[in-house]
């Protein structure tokens, strides 16, 4: 449902994506791993038009992603995003964060949206936090609200941009288990992550990106257990055995 063909992206003089080609099928979970600065997040940001790209093509359900075209709004309602730093609206409660899109973008009736919003908060284990403001919640709770907010748009896919990187270690698990449940329910997911255990357990496929190109890709367990490329081997060694 998401297809990238030879995508190039540069920031000024620096080319961060040097021809990315790949696809994500419906209900597939794809993890993108790689060193920082390799262009992992930029791929996600290009897919839902937060960044534009210079060459190549990105298609979502056959529609071309163009950050400067009005059609981008339609694509964004189909492909949600979860950010590293949550980006919840601090002036609105957890429930208001979740129903903001359904009420003001999708124009759903208020009572219906609120009812669904409460159900989504319950799904991520935060039913009792509906009226809390984001600053009153822990990082893990905020990220789960952010996932509920993404789900509220009833997207066909969700992009996760390092969803656990800003969390205290003991809070990582609660977010990953919510994501695992989503994957089990058949949600299409693209996850930029450093959580190799999650990638191994949950992902169907893993892409290893370095220097703006896909160095290696394949079934999660194959790439992570028997990496073929020297750069992949080196990266995994440093991530899995930092000492």
């Amino acid at each position: 449902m998401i297809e990238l063909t030879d995508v190039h992206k540069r920031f000024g003089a620096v080319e961060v994506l040097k021809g990315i080609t790949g696809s994500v099928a419906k209900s597939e979970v794809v993890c993108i791993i790689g060193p920082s600065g390799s262009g992992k997040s930029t791929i996600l940001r290009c897919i839902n038009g937060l960044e534009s790209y210079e060459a190549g093509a990105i298609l979502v359900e056959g529609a071309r992603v163009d950050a400067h075209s009005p059609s981008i709004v339609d694509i964004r309602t189909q492909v949600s995003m979860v950010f590293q730093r949550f980006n919840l609206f601090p002036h609105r409660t957890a429930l208001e964060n979740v129903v903001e899109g359904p009420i003001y973008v999708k124009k759903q009736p208020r009572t219906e949206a609120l009812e669904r919003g409460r159900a989504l908060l319950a799904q991520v284990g935060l039913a009792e936090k509906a009226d809390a403001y984001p600053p009153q919640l822990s990082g893990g709770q905020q990220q789960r609200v952010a996932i509920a907010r993404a789900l509220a748009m009833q997207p066909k896919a969700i992009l996760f941009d390092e969803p656990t990187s800003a969390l205290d270690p003991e809070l990582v698990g609660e977010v990953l288990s919510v994501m695992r449940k989503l994957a089990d329910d058949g949600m299409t997911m693209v996850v930029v992550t450093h959580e190799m255990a999650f990638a191994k357990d949950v992902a169907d496929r893993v892409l290893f990106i370095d220097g703006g190109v896909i160095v290696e890709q394949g079934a999660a367990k194959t790439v992570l257990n028997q990496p073929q490329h020297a750069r992949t081997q080196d990266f995994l060694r440093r991530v899995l055995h930092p000492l």
Partner: protein
Amino acid sequence: MQNFLRDAAEFLPILLQGVWLTIVVTIGSLALSTILGLLWALMRVSGVRALTLLSGGLINVIRGIPIIVLLFYLYFVMPDFGVALSALQAAILGLGIAYSAYQAENFRAGIEAIDKGQIEAAQTIGMGWWLTMRRVVLPQAVRIVLPPYGNIMIMLLKDSSQASTITVAELALQGKLIASSTFKNTSVFTLVALMYLTMSIPLILLVRHFENKANRR
């Protein structure tokens, strides 16, 4: 002191008529400058180059002209172009335009202080530019903008006295008229100063309230 109190009792009713006009000019130009300032600020951050340049240029022109000259222009020059404004209309329009530049810069600072991640989050749930402004950016910017906005209100209250230069009989002009006909300069201008101060104090308290509220977050 005895004399002052006697003078106060005599002049206060006339000065209060001036107070009324001072309040009308202040509130009128505050409303106008707020609307225009918000418009300039939104043009400035619209991302549309022509609008950004236009509002930047407008703000600089407005900032570069003294209020008193702007008032003279509206009141004495515009009739030559067939636009005759009453003194009160010219005062509200002139002060409103002059202060819109300060309002715009204040609003822009507030809007630009909002984390980019907020705007991206709004975009990823499909919000367009205006919806993002209305639902996400402006409600958060208000908290940042309120304390300086209170200061602008106080400055505007005092600058409303410039309307006296185009014959609006507000507090300062009423004072001057009484003083020049009675020669009781000390009593009259002490009264005028006290009356401005009396109007400023609630505003000063309001600013402090805004600041405390902003700091608590």
